């Protein structure tokens, strides 16, 4: 569950108000798209949800953690409850696909038995069985994105945040990726996908949160067909 209550974020260095009195709630099991133009405040929202920056005012609650009051030493523990897929994949270049994914389980001191079972499973889920021993530099953009998705899923997170996951892949792969995310959502994982690919969002429909100039200007659930009709 994600909840923002009257959240304001202003970057001290530039004085820019990135988020202004934002109120937002994403319930468990929901699939929500956060859309908006560049500079609208989408990236700030993600940084806020990952506790990479703090709100100047208001309250941020994620997966039962109150990020506003969270102590620094609790941050790693909190981040383990979230899976994140970044636009630029953020894979460790010196690790293979298998190692990149297993790393998340290593971090939480998972038993070897679980690692040996869980990692091949998520690798097969994203269709990278043949690339398990490849390094990120040996993969295409789509494969790297799928590897990043597998890494985000391996820990069975309650919340999956996808930051422009389709930004660096071709349209066909982008649609496949969102279908994959929908399948994951169907299994109970809450998904918040940040994107500026409005066309694609219109195609799939669902809950759409439109952010503009740091404010939530639209937040409704709409079906794909309805949007087409508009």
């Amino acid at each position, binding site marked *: 569950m994600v909840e923002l209550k009257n959240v304001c974020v202003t970057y001290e260095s530039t004085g820019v108000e990135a988020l202004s009195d934002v109120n937002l709630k994403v319930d468990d099991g929901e699939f929500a798209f956060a859309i908006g133009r560049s500079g609208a405040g989408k990236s700030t929202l993600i940084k806020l949800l990952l506790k990479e920056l703090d709100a100047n005012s208001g309250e941020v609650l994620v997966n039962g953690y109150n990020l506003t009051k969270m102590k*620094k030493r609790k941050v790693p523990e909190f981040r383990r409850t979230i899976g994140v897929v970044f636009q630029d994949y*953020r894979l460790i270049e010196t690790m293979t696909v298998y190692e990149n994914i297993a790393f998340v389980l290593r971090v939480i*001191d998972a038993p070897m038995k679980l690692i040996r079972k869980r990692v091949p499973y998520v690798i097969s889920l994203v269709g990278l069985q043949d690339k398990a021993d490849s390094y990120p530099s040996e993969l295409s953009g789509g494969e790297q994105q799928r590897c990043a998705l597998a890494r985000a899923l391996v820990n069975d997170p309650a919340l999956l945040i996808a930051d422009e996951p389709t930004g660096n892949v071709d349209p066909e792969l982008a649609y496949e990726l969102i279908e994959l995310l929908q399948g994951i959502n169907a299994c109970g994982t809450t998904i918040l996908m940040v994107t500026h690919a409005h066309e694609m969002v219109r195609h799939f429909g669902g809950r759409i949160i439109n952010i503009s100039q740091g404010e939530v200007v639209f937040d409704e659930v709409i079906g794909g067909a309805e949007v087409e009709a508009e």
Partner: protein
Amino acid sequence: MKLSSFRYLVGQGFDNVWKNRVMAFASFCVLLVSLLLVGISVLFYININAVIGGIEDKNEVIIYLLDNTSDARIAEIGETLSKMENVSAVTLYSREEAFADLKESMDDYSQVFESLGDDNPLPDAYRIRINDISMMDETVAAAASLKDVEYVSAPDSFVELLTELRSVVAVIAIAIIGALLIVSMVIISNTTRASVFARRREISIMQSVGATKTFIRFPFFVEGMINGFMAGAVATLLTWFTYDSLVEMLGKFDMLSTIGLGSIIPYETIAIPVTLAYILFGSLIGAMGSVFSTRAHLKHKAVNM
């Protein structure tokens, strides 16, 4: 931390040395040069001390006794001298022995000695060697205050010169070693910082998946330790080779002993402490350098990804 995680992180440290071999090699070279600079300076200082110590060994104080001192009293004085704290050796130099030596050294003046017949004008004396030349004055005064001692001959100005020389050498050596240590630490710190900075993306990814600071730092610690260990080992070999070559060269010409100085300490006698110092300091500096740089990076870049 579980044993399996510990093993994994140690393994990661070893793997990282190879995976980041360019930066690892740069750190290794900086550590090696730093260790050699400091190590050689320390060895130089130790040897300078040994060489000066060689001169000190030759220091001798002569205690002349009054004429007609009885044999029993002479023996008593000898015993008192040998019990003195700063005295390392006591040798009786009898008037007969001294007279014979004088005759031998002044062979050209044999006629003068013949005119003296059996009349020996020289007194009995004791030759003593002292441990600490900086305490020379006190020892000489104590010897001179003994009953039946006529006069004490000590190389005062020579002692002062040696004491001064040793102090100057110590100050210069400590200053140089201190400066080298600071320079080395700055260079090592910058190199490890650069190494950590080059992997900032990797670190930020680790943070984003919930890795703790310890989990992130541990492989860097191991990596730094391995680099330091290798630098220490290579520094040992290079020092050994250079030192032995130098000792062989100086030994061949017997330069130092010819001019009355002590000799260089053979490498065999200092091999173990030198090796341990290089390897321990290398490993420690390598590991701590990595840890401090990673810590500084995590502190300043904790929230930036």
